């Protein structure tokens, strides 16, 4: 049980990191859709943005070190770990798309466009990521149980 939680948390950490990295690399740097700073930003938005930026940097590194540790201890469960990634990335994207973009107005997904469709797609993708993550983790727990029963009966 402890091992499975460790797998999931490692995935979540790395997932948050991936989401933060893609947001920065694709939407800020490559597409130039996101702006570095938006005049509408509330102070709390600036703080939240800074905290999440710092945490996503940290969690990318920590998540990968946890993965190395899992492999060293030979308890790496790929399905749980990948499930954690989807969950982490989805949760970060949903928070970014709802609270940070809309409530705190740190910046919009894209400027000078009909923003509703962008927001809608963004958040639907976030929810799909979360669902995929939860399903993967659930499935891996079921197969864990089966393996356990098999082990007990033999």
């Amino acid at each position, binding site marked *: 049980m402890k091992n499975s939680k460790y797998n999931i948390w490692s995935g979540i950490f790395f997932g948050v990191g991936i989401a933060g990295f893609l947001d920065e690399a694709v939407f800020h740097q490559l597409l130039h859709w996101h702006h*570095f700073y938006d005049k509408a930003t509330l102070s709390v938005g600036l*703080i939240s943005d800074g905290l999440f*930026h*710092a945490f996503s*940097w940290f969690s990318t*590194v*920590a998540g990968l070190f946890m993965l190395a540790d899992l492999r060293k201890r030979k308890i790496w469960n790929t399905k749980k770990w990948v499930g954690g990634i989807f969950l982490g990335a989805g949760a970060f994207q949903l928070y970014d798309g709802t609270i940070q973009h809309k409530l705190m107005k740190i910046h919009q997904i894209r400027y000078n466009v009909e923003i509703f469709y962008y927001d809608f797609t963004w958040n639907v993708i976030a929810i799909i990521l979360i669902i995929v993550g939860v399903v993967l983790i659930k499935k891996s727990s079921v197969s864990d149980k089966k393996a356990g029963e098999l082990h007990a009966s033999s």
Partner: protein
Amino acid sequence: MHHHEQISWLGIALNGLLFLCLIGLYIVGVFVSNKKYSNWPLHRIVLWCFGIFCIAISLIGPIANNAHTSFQAHMITHLLLGMLGPLLIVFSTPMTLLLRCLKVPHARIVSKFLKGSYVQFITHPITATILNMGGLWLLYTTPLYHAMHSSTLLYALIHLHVFLAGYVFTASMIYLDPSPHRFSFIYRSIVLVLAMASHSILSKWIYANPPEGIAQFDAQMGGVIMYYGGDFIDVVIVITLCAQYFKLNRPINIRKNLQQS
């Protein structure tokens, strides 16, 4: 005008001499240490030289000269002086070298100082963060930045503080030199994330609210340099912190696994 030039040349000469002496001292230290102990690793000498070089070019030379008029150049000097220089110097473990070179009674005095309450106070992760980040907030959100350029004394003090606070902060996060006052990995991680966040917030704050006497575009670009430059150096601290933790934990984990099986 002529008089002013003379002073600046004197400053360059004195500063240059100081940095050369620091590099020389370290190398002498390596020779002394090699007589008593196993050979001092070459990469540490290189790291020390690069660290001192970072500080040198942030105080003298073309970038430092531009920093008086361009905020972007100023930001580059601050990244070198307050972040990259201190990081390289922490990696070169000067305190270990010093303790190796000194005679036992002298080394005892140094280690007594390191164990003392003053060092304990300033190397506490939270104090170090406040000294480091608090200083920067003070510099850029008050008229201090503007005042710094009209007083040589203030300029020198602020730059000294930026370097020392950067060094103490880095050393409070990653333990390479003897660090008698240690904090857990989780504790340091949380403080580090908060410090990194405060750095990001300040850079966006500068982007939106230029310090007194700075043109808007210059402040914006300076903020961007601070934001992304800080990221690159911070990630090295994060990787080192995590690497130390997972390395340290290895024997315990193996022991646990052995007990379980």
